[in-house]
């Protein structure tokens, strides 16, 4: 069960804040970056129109273009970040830019699942904690944060606090060991076969071959 993914155990670095609500995956990875058949070369596309102007120049007033946040590894987001399209390109590009942990009050559901599959932690925290981390992340001198996945905690250097968070044990395990979900599920192949045999017998219309499609 080796994986192309890197495990995520500890992470220490700069946090950037992007507190707009409902930043959708069309903004996170615009359509011109969806033309490939692989997962590569997407860092340029991440939040493209926020980071670059129409002439392709970096927007000096955007947080990810300003030191120290050009090196951000954490992104503190507004609610529902990653809503909209299922495009996993949004997570591939974000990760390629170096962001391995997003923290918000809520995330787009498919985006959150996609993060998990790519060694990125999408951490949901209460509004008050997200507001605190947002304030800290806006301070160039206080925006250092550290994630410790084994103890399920986030340390914020700006106020010296350590916050414990809840995480599904299965998800934690997948991130910690960079596990290949397909390989894990195939360990249950016999269970799937047994279920399928019974299920298809009880629902004979599910097997398309028996439907005699008329063309």
């Amino acid at each position, binding site marked *: 069960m080796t994986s192309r993914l890197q495990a995520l155990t500890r992470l220490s670095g700069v946090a950037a804040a992007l507190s707009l609500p409902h930043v959708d995956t069309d*903004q996170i990875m615009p359509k011109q970056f969806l033309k490939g058949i692989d997962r590569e070369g997407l860092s340029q596309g991440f939040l493209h129109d926020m980071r670059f102007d129409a002439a392709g120049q970096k927007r000096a007033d955007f947080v990810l273009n300003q030191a120290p946040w050009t090196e951000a590894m954490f992104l503190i987001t507004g609610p529902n970040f990653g809503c909209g399209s299922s495009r996993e390109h949004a997570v591939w590009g974000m990760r390629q830019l170096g962001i391995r942990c997003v923290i918000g009050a809520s995330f787009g559901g498919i985006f959150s699942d*996609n993060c998990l599959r790519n060694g990125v932690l999408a951490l949901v925290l209460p509004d008050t904690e997200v507001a605190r981390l947002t304030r800290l992340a806006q301070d160039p001198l206080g925006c250092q944060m550290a994630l410790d996945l084994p103890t399920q905690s986030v340390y914020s250097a700006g106020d010296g606090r350590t916050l414990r968070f809840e995480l599904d044990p299965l998800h934690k395990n997948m991130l910690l060991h960079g596990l290949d979900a397909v390989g894990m599920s195939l360990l249950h192949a016999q269970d799937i076969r047994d279920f399928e045999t019974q299920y298809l017998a009880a629902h004979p*219309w599910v097997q398309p071959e028996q439907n005699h499609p008329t063309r």
Partner: protein
Amino acid sequence: MTGRTLYQRIVDAHTVRPLGDGGPILLYVDRQVLNEYTSPQAFAALHAQGRPVWRPGASLAVVDHVNATTPVRNARTMVLHDADRARQVQTLADNCARHGIELFDMLDTRQGIEHVVASEQGWVLPGMVMAAGDSHTTTHGAMGALGFGIGSSEIEHLLATQTLVYRPQKNLRVTVHGTMPPGITAKDVVLSLIAQIGADGAAGHVIEYTGPAIEAMGVEGRLTLCNMSVEAAARGAIVAPDDTLFHYLHGRPRVPQGAHWDAAVAQWRNLRSDHDAVFEREVSLDARHIAPRVTWGTSPDQGVPIDGVVPDPAHEGDAQKRQGMQRALAYMALIPGQALQGLPISHAFIGSCTNSRIDDLRDAARYLRGRRVASGVRAMVVPGSSLVRAQAEAEGLAQIFQQAGFEWRQSGCSMCVAMNEDHLNPGDRCASSTNRNFEGRQGAGARTHLMSPAMVAAAAVTGVLTDLRSLPCH
């Protein structure tokens, strides 16, 4: 023992096994649809591991996102000049051939938007679980099924195992009371709901729609409703199967026939929530009070009735929401207090997996007969599938659209997602029957107002956002 919701019944019937104590389960999936832009990476990962496709017959592949919608479709016109898009289409064809998966390619008479094709073919049936690499897979809840969108890594998982690692969601019941007034459609109902509960209002939940207005609604309206439920962050949206649905399904190509049909319907009639089922949340709407809706902002919850005005961010108490509103108003070039009615448009678009079916085209055509698209407006119709297009031509609808000055195009996702050459330019303002008014969605710098197909038709002929109730229809 307390009763179960319809959603819980479907999940229980598809649970292969639990996965640890945290709540995730291994969920069996009946069928999936694949497209050309989110599946290549899934197949590539599968091939890299040397894994076979678990059940090739569970997949149907359709080209829809990147194909051209040029009015004439043949082997010559459907050569994609963009090498990247051509490669996506070719890769899908290669992967389907390699694994024995059925493909509706660009020249297939059944080609269309994956979600339109799936219901049209009877590919999704009551009680099924359906997943696809497209967020609007919630559409299929109108079939009394559970449908939801997944990313490419999960497509890989699905192809390899015919299951997903799934976390059961909470239950949200949306009851729509009353009868819908004339001219009001499912689109107005769902835009009202999203404005009421917010773009994240159904996060972590699967919606079950119920109530007199839903019972009276046709299947195509229910498809619209379930389709756009994802814009309120729902992870699924279901309408319990009934005779309206069975009538819709009967005789479709992938639907069981004869004795199989009778046995299936007998089972499907049991697919409903128990009377004592527990819904974690309840929301209700009164259809009698729903007006034609339009959005003014860049999130689907930023909408008002057509006779409303652009709201003032200064009155929004939540700082984050206020910031979002201000950004949206700047992008949309609107000012607080401005009336939506009378706002000039440059484009009118009828299409998308939300609103491109035959009922949608009939609705729109009623406002076009004997009228012309206003000067300075470019108006397009992109039917949801090639079969919808053919039916509309047989019914004379195509002629109505064309005589009114609409472009009558071939099917695809087209200008809803603007991944082919159909897109708007910066500053264009479009009355659109689509599902997302996001920044740049229909083209960089383009401004989208979401509304029903009939409202798009009304705007097209007047050149401004218009209350269709003020326009006599035929």
